[in-house]
């Protein structure tokens, strides 16, 4: 697995991970703006709630792919060590909450009232996971 990840990233695993995780984090900020419009809390003249919600879902699908790819690469290449405990815990929690949110969206519609809470949790966990890895790497150059 380690060799496969290294081959895919052409030896720049940390750098590729930093770019992909940063894209996911930036899109997550955009997601917040879109869903605020989607719920009608803000009504810009150029974007309807329906269009904002549609883009929120499309962008969210892209974020899920990025999170899964980065998570698998991270786990396969770096594994689990004591130094990255916070990153590992928030990363695992992010996957769990993201899976719960998708489950509510797809199958458990009755729990839809929890979507804003789950979405906020996903954003916060993604932010902390990014800060403790890619953000730290970009700020200090240490992986």
């Amino acid at each position, binding site marked *: 697995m380690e060799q496969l990840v*290294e081959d895919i990233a*052409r*030896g*720049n695993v940390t*750098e590729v991970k*930093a*770019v992909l995780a*940063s*894209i996911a984090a*930036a*899109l997550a900020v*955009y997601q917040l703006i*879109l869903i605020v419009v989607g719920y009608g809390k803000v009504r810009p*003249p*150029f*974007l*309807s709630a*329906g*269009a*904002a919600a*549609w*883009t929120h879902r*499309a*962008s969210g699908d*892209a974020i899920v792919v990025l999170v899964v790819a980065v998570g698998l690469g991270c786990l396969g290449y770096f594994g689990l*060590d*004591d*130094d990255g405990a916070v990153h590992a815990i928030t990363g695992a929690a992010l996957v769990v909450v993201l899976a719960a949110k998708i489950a509510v969206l797809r199958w458990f519609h009755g729990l839809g009232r929890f979507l804003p809470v789950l979405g906020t949790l996903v954003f916060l966990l993604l932010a902390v996971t990014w800060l403790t890895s890619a953000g730290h790497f*970009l700020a200090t150059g240490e992986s």
Partner: protein
Amino acid sequence: MRRPPAAVQMLGSLLVALAIVLVVVAVVSARLGPGGGVDREDRAKERQQQREDVLKEREKRLKDLRDDG
């Protein structure tokens, strides 16, 4: 101001997402600098050294725990 058609709104908001992706790739790549010439052997040695350090640290902790007990 009249709202544009729904398809235009969707396309526009998707293009904003695409622009965000492109800006992030450009900014992060610029921050990282050129990486195409990374020496794999150097990287592998660095990883091996990190692993050995972690193992040594764990062994030291285990020894300390045994000594305390």
